[in-house]
């Protein structure tokens, strides 16, 4: 499976199910790659998998894809590969790959189950931009017959917040779209803030759509709880010290245009609908002076986060490192 086929397959996966996280699509692609691989040695296999992950990162440089890819590799090789026969080893790895996929497709539901109890009747929730996990949580809460209202930030430059509002209206949840600049204004009315995450870093902080850091700071000042909902495959081995320390490749992305032939013009930036390769890698390569570019994500330090809801459980930011050590070491 060469690079073109890989990218094709990835795009196909994303197109098939826009509700699926891009990391899941990436993992499906990697699993397919594993199945089709004709390598002779385990080491060769690992190398080609690493190469495949790198290719996918070139297509969609979101944090989730890189973390998902690495976790996938670790998960399948975390078993005894002592079999003499390469094909048997491969089979074991494939089985574990399927298991991993199954687990993570359930993760969003697990998160929703944990989080919806924190939404009390009559609550006013503030959220940021478009996040499928938050949507799932709110769906579950609505299904439990809870009455709540939602404020969504518009989240420029791609106005993804409007899409969130549309989807929530369909669930019959009262929703208001507010300006990004109005977060401080509206915070005195809300009871809690829930956001999704693109990546959860080692310190317990999160990487998310630009504007999240501001929201977290304001909630801290207002003493409102700031909750993050994220699946466990978003845990990544980064440790940014401040905004500058986040690698540039995550920060630079443009809202995509209609040129690449994707159906929905509102596919969001945040949860990584596939970007055409000519934008992602191009932006990095063509823009000489990245200071002209505006970052599309920011880093929220752990001191501002109250709790993280993941499929591994409800964690405090300091427990994230513990979980990461268990996952990665």
């Amino acid at each position, binding site marked *: 499976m060469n690079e073109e086929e890989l990218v094709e397959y990835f795009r196909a996966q994303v197109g098939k199910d826009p509700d699926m996280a891009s990391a899941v699509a990436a993992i499906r692609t990697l699993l397919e790659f594993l199945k089709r691989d004709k390598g002779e040695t385990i080491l060769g296999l690992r190398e080609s998998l690493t190469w495949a992950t790198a290719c996918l990162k070139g297509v969609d440089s979101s944090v989730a894809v890189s973390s998902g890819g690495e976790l996938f590799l670790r998960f399948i090789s975390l078993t005894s590969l002592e079999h003499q026969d390469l094909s048997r080893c491969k089979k074991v790895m494939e089985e574990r790959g399927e298991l991993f996929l199954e687990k993570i497709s359930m993760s969003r539901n697990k998160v929703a189950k944990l989080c919806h109890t924190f939404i009390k009747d009559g609550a006013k929730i503030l959220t940021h931009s478009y996040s499928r996990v938050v949507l799932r949580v709110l769906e579950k809460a609505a299904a439990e017959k809870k009455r709540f209202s939602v404020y969504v930030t518009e989240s420029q430059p791609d106005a993804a917040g409007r899409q969130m509002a549309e989807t929530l209206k369909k669930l019959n949840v009262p929703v208001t779209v507010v300006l990004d600049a109005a977060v401080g204004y509206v915070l005195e009315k809300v009871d809690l803030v829930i956001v999704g995450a693109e990546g959860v870093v080692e310190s317990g902080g999160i990487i998310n759509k630009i504007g999240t850091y501001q929201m977290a700071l304001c909630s801290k000042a207002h003493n409102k709880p700031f909750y993050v909902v994220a699946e466990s495959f978003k845990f990544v081995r980064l440790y940014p*010290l401040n905004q500058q320390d986040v690698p540039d490749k995550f920060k630079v992305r443009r809202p995509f245009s209609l040129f690449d032939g994707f159906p929905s013009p509102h596919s969001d930036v945040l949860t990584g609908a596939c970007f055409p390769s000519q934008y992602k890698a191009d932006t990095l390569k063509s823009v000489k002076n990245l200071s002209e570019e505006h970052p599309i994500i920011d880093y929220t330090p752990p001191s501002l986060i109250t709790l993280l809801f993941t499929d591994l459980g409800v964690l405090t930011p300091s427990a994230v490192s513990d979980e990461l050590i268990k996952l990665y070491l």
Partner: protein
Amino acid sequence: MADSGVTDGFEKTDGIERAKSEGKELTKEEKQRLRKEKKQQKKNKEKKDDRASQESGREKQGVSSAASAPQPSAQSAAQKAPSAVPAPVPVAASEAPAPAPAPADKPAKSKAELKAERRARQDAERASKHGKKGDPGQPGAAGKPKAPTSELQPVVKRLPEHIQVDNPDVLKKLAKKLERQQIPLRLDYGYKVSLFSHLHQYSRKAPLTQQLSIPSTVIHPAIVRLGLQYSQGIVAGSNARSVALLHAFRQVIRDYTTPPNEELSRDLVNRLKPYISFLNQCRPLSASMGNAIKYIKKEISNIPSQCKEEEAKSKLLHCIEWYIKEKIILAAKAIAESSIEKISDGDVILIYGCSSLVNHILCEAFEKSRKFRVIVVDSRPRLEGREALRRLVQRGISCTYVLISAVSYILPEVSKVFLGAHALLANGYVMSRVGTSQIALVAKAFNVPVLVCCETYKFCERVQTDSFVSNELDDPDDLIVTRNGRTQLENWQQEPSLGLLNLVYDVTPPDFVDLVITELGMIPCTSVPVVLRVKNVDQ
């Protein structure tokens, strides 16, 4: 029987006195006899006391003042029992008066059989004693009633003696222990500030080696030299001290020969104990040294008994070399690699004092052509920053030098703070040179990220939330400065209300530290217990 013991003792004590004055190590037999003699004397006293106390009525077990006579002997017996192999003799002698002819029997039975007997008896007695007595380490625990130990497991933790200097009973016990190991006791010097009166304070002008007689065969000369280097500050810094300690132990092991009828694994550990006490007297052990010693003791006691001496010695030397290589040298390399990712071009890095690890990191980063400049912060009385400054400037790194009083002035320029650590405590607090927590606090106020670099062998299980409980007091005379030929504080001892305090360490809370870089990776300060847990599982 008692008589024979005493008369025997009289002849032997002369010999022992002679040996002591000559500074020769008492042979095992002599030590045994000394102990037995003391036991007998105590027993006689005890018999008299018993009669007296029985008349006055038995007091509660917990009250320290009565400390009914069997208890001190039981305690001191228990104290001595774990110490050395010859101990079973006095225990057996005190507990079972019938086999008093045991000493006479000794030549009759073989030593090994007797030892086995005694050990069995000792174990049985220890089991029964655990039901009887309370915490063995606290006879004068400020009159606190001892816990009913028959139900409770021995969960009560002993406070280390080096933070109980104001407790005269603990001092007495220390003196006794040192006397037994034939190490001179170092006396505290000068007036201690009352908040720190529970810590030792020694003077550099009175090193412990002055009280050792020459030639001294009790302590290996490499250890004597090391102790002097510690107490005079010639070898300073956590890594340097640990490496010097391990090198000295290597020399000790090379020169060691197993005495006949002894096992290397047990005898060598006992041989090391007086050395460690001596080094502790010269300068309190650091956390890293403590971990290194634990490792060596474990390795020694894991030597199988059928191992030949040469083989065992080479194995131990190899273990020590491996420890130094992996935990200190390679760890430094790994940490440098991780840290270089955090240093970007154009950075202004602030460092404090002289940490070998931080200096190494900065030099490596400079080699990898990162463009940065360094601000070295220094403080009295040690002025270690000058050494760091010298090393960095030699490499060609552009540096600025300030004193710690200027830290809030210089911080707006700084982009990162790199700190070294003396130890990382189990609750995430960082113990480091005094002044570190100040810098971390000011950096936090200016929103500058603080990175602590620390190898995992410095992680310790202790928990501390303030700098008072356990610290080190350096020589107070170091604070005296002479300017223009005048020394204002010359006669500070005469001033009744004046105290000089020269602290060595302080403790930084984890809220001020953004990142800890270890050879296992970058972890937040709160994850130190996780690493400790993982390490324990490994071992």
